[in-house]
């Protein structure tokens, strides 16, 4: 970053003595533009000594996926994005037959159960009911008076969602892969933590009269940022970061305008 060409140094107008065109010893003051010495690279030093980097929604150690960071002025946008309360999409993989203390497969084993009675249909039924009750919670925590016409119109468009702090709410959940003993769910949620998703997998196992642990939590979308925008470890260099910022700038702006007005 520091090797990139800098801004041109500021110019100032100074009245410098120059020998008069007439000759002789007379000195004339001629206004000339000279660069300010204070802007000289040797005086100032490197332009960037440290960068302000802020993090978006948290992602814990055992999970992977999209993690939004803001650099410099982008940190202000981060707060605005947080206030937009946009949903995030996760791909959660689980394994039937085990129950551990921290709901993931690396925890201490608590119980092993059979799981051959579980079918995809039963799982989808449970998943549909989770979506239903969470949809109800979505409407309740959005703090809109249900008796008004505008509440009805927002509910029709599906735009009701809590605009303040609320407990974790799952807006959509479906089963994308099922092969006993493993299964994979796609979960779209608000205000959640990854441990809550692992606990959800454990509770699904309990509902199906068995037990389940979560093997993988991967965030595939965070608001407007999807997996395609995310940079893998090999691309953490200046050029890719600059391209990524440029690509997302317009989308972020439109989303903020749409939600916050």
């Amino acid at each position: 970053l520091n090797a990139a060409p800098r801004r041109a140094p500021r110019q100032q107008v100074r009245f410098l003595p120059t020998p008069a065109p007439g000759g002789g010893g007379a000195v004339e003051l001629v206004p000339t533009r000279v660069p300010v010495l204070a802007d000289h690279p040797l005086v100032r030093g490197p332009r960037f000594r440290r960068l302000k980097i802020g993090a978006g929604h948290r992602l814990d150690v055992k999970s992977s996926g999209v993690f939004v960071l803001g650099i410099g002025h982008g940190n202000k946008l981060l707060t605005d994005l947080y206030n937009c309360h946009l949903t995030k999409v996760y791909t959660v993989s689980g394994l039937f037959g085990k129950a551990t203390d921290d709901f993931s497969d690396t925890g201490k084993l608590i119980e092993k159960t059979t799981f051959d009675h579980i079918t995809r249909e039963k799982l989808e039924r449970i998943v549909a009911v989770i979506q239903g009750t969470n949809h109800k919670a979505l409407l309740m925590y959005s703090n809109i008076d249900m008796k008004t016409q505008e509440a009805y119109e927002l509910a029709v468009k599906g735009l009701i969602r809590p605009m303040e702090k609320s407990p974790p709410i799952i807006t959509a959940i479906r089963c994308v892969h099922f092969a006993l003993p493993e299964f994979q769910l796609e979960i779209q949620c608000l205000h959640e933590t990854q441990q809550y998703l692992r606990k959800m997998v454990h509770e699904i196992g309990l509902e199906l009269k068995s037990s389940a642990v979560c093997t993988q939590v991967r965030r595939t979308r965070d608001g407007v940022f999807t997996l395609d925008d995310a940079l893998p470890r090999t691309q953490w260099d200046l050029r890719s970061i600059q391209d990524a910022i440029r690509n997302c700038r317009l989308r972020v702006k439109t989303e903020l305008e749409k939600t916050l007005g």
Partner: protein
Amino acid sequence: LRAAMAGVLRAVRPLLLLLLRRGLRGTAGPPSARQLREAEEAAPVFQYAGKAARRKDRVFVWGFSYSGALGVPSFVKPDVGWKKPRRIQPTPYRLETEEKISSAACGYGFTLLASNTTDITKVWGMGLNKDSQLGFQRSRRDQTKGYEYVLEPSPIPLPLEKPQQTRVLQVSCGRAHSLVLTDSEGVFTMGNNSYGQCGRKVVEDEIYSESHLIHQLNEFDSRVVQVVCGQDHSLFRTKKGAVYACGWGADGQTGLGHHNVTSVPTKLHGDIAGVNIIQVSSYGDCCLAVSDEGEVFGWGNSEYFQLASITETTQVNVPRHLPFKIGKIKEAACGGTGNAVLTEEGNVFVWGYGILGKGPNLTETAVPEMIPPSLFGWSDFSSDIRVAHVRCGLSQFAALTNRGELFVWGKNLRGCLGTGRMEDQYFPWRVTVPGEVVDVACGVDHMVSIVKSFT
């Protein structure tokens, strides 16, 4: 203990350390990965449900309980000192039944539950019994008298000829009378008959309470396949697609062309003559019938714009075709002041007066308006959600989706919507029932649902 031992080790001199350390080599440090794996494999496996685990059938009730219609006696008369009487049950409450209930119906303050078993007891009733709408319930305190309020599901003795072969297919309840449909012995009616709604001759000054009389109706052109009770009239639909009616007709709800009382089930003509009707519905004083081609016919009270699309009069006493261009209609449901139909695509259309389900601004319309499917959970994520059934109470509506979810809207009279709140609901709201809802019956101030558990 290990930490204390380590502390001791450090304090002791090196000589003793050697001896002690050899002895302590047997204790393990943190378990290695191999030890963990072996411990896991050796752990016992618990089985909570076998491969042949069946889904259980449950009944959930909610609404006003003081009439006994919910069938939970401890709500009205608490059996333990610390319990308080519960006037309203705002959320679904599980009702324990002995048999699997296949059909339920809610009347005005009472409920009937029926099972299609071949056992002797096939129908249970609870709630108001002042007109013997639940048959004769002998009082245990005085053997000559009957109960006026039945607080828990009590068997209704039906005078069947072959009690161990006949099955009860369906039950229906009106304001003060009930109908029980069997597969081979016709229809049994009981309760108030002051307008001939039980299908027998009106007797002057008849006392209906503590009556043992259960009338049997068998003279129809073919087997009866559906019975529906309006407020004070009864409708019978036969296998051939004909509709019969009896009872009060002052609003034209019997559809027989006059406004008098009919005490014998008579066939309806008008626009439904010759049409194969596949479903009839009524709860108040208006009636709707659906034909096999998806056309809907209506008759009865039209004071609330239910039939205003074809006529300005407030009573229609002959079935008339309602020319709605909303698609092929699969099911219709008639409430007190509002009606709802379900089309083949799974959309719900409502019209009439009252809280219709499209926000507080829509209070009356004569032409059906569609309720947006996104209110029933339809979205791009789950686009195969359809409404499978619609039901009507007196001023509420209920819709069942193909995923087994129950949505209710309308006036929340004494908590009958089951949402947990006491406010009226202006658009469809999900009721949280711990199971997949198979059927729901709506009454005036309570509802009963037949549910299958998830696993």
